[in-house]
């Protein structure tokens, strides 16, 4: 059995027939071929699959594609404005906020949510805000720096 869905991803509408059990993350990766969103676990712990669902962060492995019918999804591929990197992407690059890069798309999308809710977070608030995203390479320190740096840029301050 399949069900028709219409999901807008990064501004483009995709009309597809999917199995009701299909996870949103597999819709994004396998059905429409946007592989920037990663799968790092099977228990919703790691946060690698974090995307924006109607502007709010969601772990795309805990959501069925059919639940996203009619929704608008933003993935890491859709964050940059044309060729201009989003300030979070710039900051992760500038502050060495990534190593192997696997957690990075989810980490950046979760940071996006963090800054949406709190545009001027302290280091401690950033650490708390990202506790649902796992990174095994960086020890998180430069991720915290990156998010702090992005917050300053987005507020128009100096970094």
């Amino acid at each position, binding site marked *: 059995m399949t069900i028709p869905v219409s999901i807008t991803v990064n501004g483009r509408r995709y009309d597809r027939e999917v199995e009701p059990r299909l996870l949103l993350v597999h819709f994004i990766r396998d059905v429409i071929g946007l592989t920037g969103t990663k799968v790092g676990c099977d228990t919703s712990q790691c946060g690698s699959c974090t995307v924006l669902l109607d502007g709010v962060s969601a772990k795309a492995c805990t959501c069925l594609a059919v639940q996203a019918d009619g929704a608008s999804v933003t993935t890491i591929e859709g964050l940059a404005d044309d060729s201009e990197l989003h300030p979070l992407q710039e900051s992760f690059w500038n502050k060495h906020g990534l190593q*192997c*890069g*696997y957690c990075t798309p989810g980490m950046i999308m979760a940071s996006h949510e963090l800054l949406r809710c709190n545009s001027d977070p302290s280091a401690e608030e950033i650490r708390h805000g990202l506790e649902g995203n796992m990174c*095994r390479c960086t*020890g998180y320190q430069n991720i915290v720096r990156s998010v702090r740096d992005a917050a300053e840029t987005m507020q128009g301050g100096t970094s």
Partner: protein
Amino acid sequence: MSATTFGSGIRRREDPRLITGNASYTDDITLPGMLHAALLRSPYAHARINGIDTAQASEAPGVVAVYTGADTEGDIAPAPCAWLLPDSDLKIAEYHCVAKDTVRYVGDIVAVVVAESRYQAYDALDLIDVDYEPLDAVVEPKKAAADGTPQLHGEIEGNQAFHWTVTGGGDIGEAFSQAEVVVKETIVQQRLIPNAMEPRATLASYIPATGELTVWNTTQNPHIVRFLCSLVIGVPEDRLRVIAPEVGGGFGSKIAVYPADFITIFCSKKLGVPVKWVESRSENYQATTHGRDHVQEIELAATADGKITGLRATVWAGMGAYLSTAAPGIPTILHGLMLSGVYDIPAIHEDVYGLYTNTTPVEAYRGAGRPEATFMVERLVDLLAAKLGLDPVEVRRRNFIPKFDNGHDVVTGLTYDSGNYDGALNKLLGESNYEQLRAEQAEARKNGRYIGLGLSTYVEICGLGPSQVAGAIGFQGGLWESAIVRFHPSGKVHVMIGTSPHGQGEETTFAQIIAGELGVSPDDVKVIHGDTDNTPMGWGTYGSRTTAVGGAALALAARKIRDKAKVIAAHLLEAAVEDMDYDDGKFFVKGSPDSSKTIQDIALMANVAWNMPEGVEAGLEATTFYDPPNFVFPYGAHLAVVEVDPDSGNVDLKRYVAVDDCGPQINPVIVEGQVHGGIVQGIGQALWEEGVYDDDGQLLTGTMLDYALPRADRLPDIEVHSTVTPSPHHPLGVKGIGEAGTIASTAAVYNAVIDALAPLGVEAVNMPLTPERVWRSIQAAQGRN
């Protein structure tokens, strides 16, 4: 060298593709006609297989094939162990990629399903009916050595994979019989699960018409994968191409070539279409190699004034159900030979028993043997300090190897390259304001607060290593690295390296090496790695060796280029070669800097070859094979400050200060990132992480929900400092830094917690130091049960 490139913390060139979702990891690759494999793994730790019924699975929607051990027999050789530890009575159990008649750990592979989609493949796994006859299991290494315990491999007596010893220096028995002071401890180095964020995956594409096989694999060492696949699967190396695309971390767990990899290749070969297998995270916990799992009985002999006279240890190392690719060398060569640490120890003896247990195979995990050695030594030194009522700083100073620049022999047979251990400690004490911290601790104790300071002064062996030594210690490969540097006509550079970084940033640091050696912009250098068809042979990234060994190969290749370019420049400038000088990318006649040619000029002239000097070949390219004359030995001093809440047992890590010396830093920002990540993994071992099996061999920490990884909200900012002591034998003076943090930090945090608990009478707590364990240890020490 150009001051603006080598030593500069420039941004990583890897990052633009990674921060935009444009990087391709193995699971991101899809080929036309590709099928998906899923593996049926044993739910029992030890069982006989009396029968497998695959009929229903074979008929399931989308299923193309189902294979069991009987189907793969003869086509997939047993998974090889490639570290044949000499003089150790090594007994290698046959590791059938698909179990034949017995399964020996939860996760052992029983069958494979190939289907049109991943969901269909998983669905069909549920339809395979296996008739298991459960057998008794053994999971703890010391128990595995005892009489009357379940035996894993009938032909291997007492579950013993090997018994390895190291003996060095004076008579160890005499050291202990004449010791004025002896301290002892039993330490459990718990099992750890590496948890690279990218799960393992293999995509195999076999083309029957040509007999060519391409394998995309999440590996730290694609050339080793090619070599071993050719042996196990029988595709000749010349037709076998292995690609490590973007690889999402490894930490040792992507060194081994796994049964799942061979099986995926087998499926592609059998079906003549591409087949992809990707493990789930739960599968990763069960079947991707684990780390540590030692029981260590250790003792130290010393004089009454705190001078160490001997160290003796017996270690039971759990190896899991089979010996993984490099496993035997980890608890032995990379562990036992480092037992002198940063100290002058006149007599050392260690016995290591490697034991088969009904658990996931144990392999290298960040630090691989050295964290276990550092922990032993640093624990003993602290015990000695406590026994003598001395500050841990003082005991260390009384035993440090004095500063040396060019070689120091320790009794285990190694020659450390260079070190100033007291220098690193002094810097640490200054940066952390140690005396002040001790005063604050004393004050806090008066107020019923339990603050602890923990030191770890470490040295580690990395940059593996001379190939002659590799042969002597049974490593079934070389340990050199190679590099090709190629100038294109426009002066742009391609660098091809055999080793294969996977997140460490060497695309950037290697471009910086070239920039430093040849005066080009790092932006003009492309670093190519990870594809066996496009790169020279190399042995891979582990043992903090890629910059130390691969970087040396690269620097020497660049110097060959410089030598050749100088000859061409002399010819073009009509000068004698010996009259030529070089500075930052320019060749000029001595004393006439205006009469010069840039490296880009030479690249063009060498490529068009209109006017070459007599006997000089066209092109500007060099290849180097660098076999290091010795290992490198980074070192440092770390301090952890903790506060323990005696009512809850919670450990609050308040500060962490690190001083590391990896020689000159090519990119200090990248070095700092390695230090952060390494330290946090070691903190994870001290405080949170543990792979737990029950007595039946069920993995209780089988998901990310149950295994406590370090999280952002549990950590302080790490204060990173360094000293710089070049390696005397290395072309750039550099040492490795990938594992140093992990090697040092577990002991520092543990020592800090024990220091905090000392007034409560607690002397030891098994890791990880969870609130419950700490609380229970306090209750026991206080006589409350």
